């Protein structure tokens, strides 16, 4: 793979020549996007029960406001926010509440969930669209976003209304639409940009309405030239909107990396994007904002990519949140070969699941089914101190050293070498020629150190 590194250098200098924005470090994994890229978004209607984990966002779990036996309609609120940093949950089908019980979620935990028996009728509540968004006050907009249960749908699940309420709104200069979609295999955002660009732009305009001094920037990796072209065409008469082509490199869509690429400003783990005058939202989130404010619709569906070499017909599906993953695989034609590994999310940061019987949530952007688990076939060998992880780390850390400190439980050294700055992107494990589980060790240690700090 040294050829590959050389290729890297060429690409990087090429990228700079072409005026593409980027960050330092990063890796170029096999993209795999060709599998599902050309499959238009198809709607999937759920057949079985739907499961809504009460904790599918960062912050306090939502509290149920329905009881077993209640009948609910699609679009009806079934759980309300459990605090300011929390988000309500809506039914995505009509039917009957079957149970409120712990269910297994994608990350492997058992989470208290509302289970709804789908009556198959999809009877929907009446939504009240807003004819003139510009007449709304900032508070009204944020209230609508909060009430609709919009959270960061790129994967983190941070409640969007909190993000949109910074301490000093006047200092926000950039609203960055994270259209990088840097995770290999994923094409959901790509399809959204091609098929729903107007919703995306309208959603961005709603956010801009909150921040008078801000510009809206769509940061798109240059492996999606059709999206760049399409959005450029649509924003050409919009003085406050801009498309920013980015170099195709993982993790270009990492929040800190994206902010740096677009604005040249860098933030650390103690800072929020707002400290750099930025707010970053993912494509799906911005479309959810549009649905919430303009159409009055809560978050009940989203697009996910069902892909991988084990899937018969990889594609992009608009599904009702709460649908079982198994139904989405079925929609993609089922398995062509028995997969060894199934991953909720992308191959770099996604969660491997031991079973398919798991509900989708607001943050389920992809299911990747791989016929072979290449990681299991590789045995870690001794670190030869080659420094490839140092070159790859987008946070400019020394992953091999941090992993060693982590394995030895040396928390002081770990902090001294800035271990808490790790963004858990996995570039170090990816690039390691000795196939060491660097990211895994670092992530574990980071959790321990942060937990110890909270205790203090």
């Amino acid at each position: 793979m040294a050829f590959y590194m050389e290729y890297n250098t060429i690409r990087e200098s090429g990228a700079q020549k072409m005026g593409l924005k980027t960050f330092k470090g990063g890796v170029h994994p096999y993209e795999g996007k060709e599998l599902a890229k050309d499959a238009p978004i198809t709607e999937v209607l759920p057949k079985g029960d739907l499961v809504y984990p009460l904790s599918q966002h960062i912050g306090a779990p939502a509290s149920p406001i329905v009881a077993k036996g209640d009948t609910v309609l699609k679009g009806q609120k079934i759980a309300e926010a459990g605090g300011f940093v929390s988000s309500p949950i809506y039914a995505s089908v009509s039917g009957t509440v079957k149970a409120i019980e712990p269910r297994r979620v994608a990350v492997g935990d058992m989470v208290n969930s509302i289970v709804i028996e789908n009556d198959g009728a999809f009877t929907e509540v009446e939504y009240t669209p807003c004819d003139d968004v510009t007449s709304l006050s900032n508070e009204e907009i944020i209230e609508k976003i909060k009430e609709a249960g919009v959270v960061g749908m790129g994967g983190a699940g941070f409640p969007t209304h909190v993000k949109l309420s910074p301490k000093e709104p006047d200092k926000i200069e950039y609203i960055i639409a994270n259209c990088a979609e840097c995770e290999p295999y994923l094409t959901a955002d790509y399809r959204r940009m091609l098929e729903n660009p107007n919703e995306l732009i309208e959603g961005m305009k709603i956010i801009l309405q909150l921040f008078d001094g801000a510009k809206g920037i769509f940061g798109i990796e240059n492996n999606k030239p059709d999206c760049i072209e399409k959005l450029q065409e649509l924003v050409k008469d919009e003085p406050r909107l801009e498309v920013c082509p980015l170099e195709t490199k993982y993790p270009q869509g990492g929040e800190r990396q994206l902010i740096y690429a677009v604005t040249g400003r860098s933030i650390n783990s103690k800072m929020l994007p707002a400290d750099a005058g930025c707010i970053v939202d993912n494509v799906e989130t911005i479309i959810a904002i549009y649905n919430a404010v303009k159409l009055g619709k809560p978050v009940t569906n989203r697009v996910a990519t069902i892909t991988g070499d084990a899937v018969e017909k990889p594609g992009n599906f608009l599904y009702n949140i709460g649908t079982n993953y198994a139904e989405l695989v079925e929609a993609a034609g089922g398995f062509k070969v028995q997969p060894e590994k199934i991953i909720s999310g992308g191959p770099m940061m996604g969660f491997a699941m031991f079973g398919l019987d798991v509900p989708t949530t607001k943050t389920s952007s992809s299911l990747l089914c791989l016929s072979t688990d290449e990681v299991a076939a590789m045995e870690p060998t001794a670190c030869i101190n080659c420094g490839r992880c140092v070159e790859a780390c987008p946070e400019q850390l020394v992953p091999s050293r941090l992993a060693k400190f982590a394995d030895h439980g040396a928390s002081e050294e770990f902090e001294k070498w800035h271990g808490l700055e790790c963004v858990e992107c996995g570039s170090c494990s990816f690039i390691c020629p000795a196939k060491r589980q660097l990211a895994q060790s670092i992530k574990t240690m980071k959790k321990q150190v942060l937990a110890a700090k909270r205790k203090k």
Partner: protein
Amino acid sequence: MSDLYHVSSSPHVRSKDTTARIMLYVILALLPTTLFGIYNFGYRALILILVTIASCVASEWIFDRIVHKKNTIGDLSAVVTGLLLALNLPATLPWWEAVLGGVFAIIIVKCLFGGLGQNFMNPALGARCFLLIAFAADMTNFVTDTYTGATPLAAMRNGEAVNTMDMLIGRTAGTIGETSAIAILIGAIFLILMGVIDLKIPGSYIVTFVIFMLLFGGHGFDWTYITAQLCGGGLMLGAFFMATDYVTSPITPRGQILFGICCGILTGVFRCFGANAEGVSFAIILSNLLVPIIEKYTVPRAFGQIRGEKKQEGGK
């Protein structure tokens, strides 16, 4: 749901790079100088190279057997050590001394400290210095059928004139792999293009050495002298193939530059003020010993970390 799928921590994909592949690139990069050495010094050089590599690989295999460790000869690192050691030996060295050198490099310098990745000193250079002390006469006997004179560096010390063109091409006395600057540079360029090494260590090493020799070499701005110093001895081989050894050089980018500077200064000191005309091997292994302290003071600044801020408190 009877079948369980594999579960592991992300990421779920890996690059194709492996340790063995990196070592293979180093071996390929050493081929020009190896072939030139064989051409220059004849079949004795070839035999010595093969014997040294065999000794290194066998030592590692036997050691792994004795201590019940997983066999690690497949990573090719022992081959690289053997080849580098051989290139640092005079072609006339008795074969059994070369075997001993291989055993020392692998068993004493590498395996006893925990094997690949754990040694604090470059095994090939450690063994070379061991042989230099143990068999001083054999190790400094550069007289062959082709060359009856001293090495260019020794000749310069005695005030004799040297032919820098011969030194660039490698038609001089010396160890098997050190004579041809051009052959070494071809290999070095290959390694740089393949992304195996970069210029931080060799660059700072050579620049520092040149500055040092300009200041203290006693010849001022005499470019013939500087060129001869650069091409002579083990400097080129050392700067591109030994100082850049991953295991025994710092991992921090600033540390690598500092390490190169250390190597440059020490080489200059040994060559100008030492008893011997040579100094590269000792300069590098002494710098190897400084690596932990260099790393300690060159922890890179994390992305977004404010300059001057020593320690991150963490958390939002």
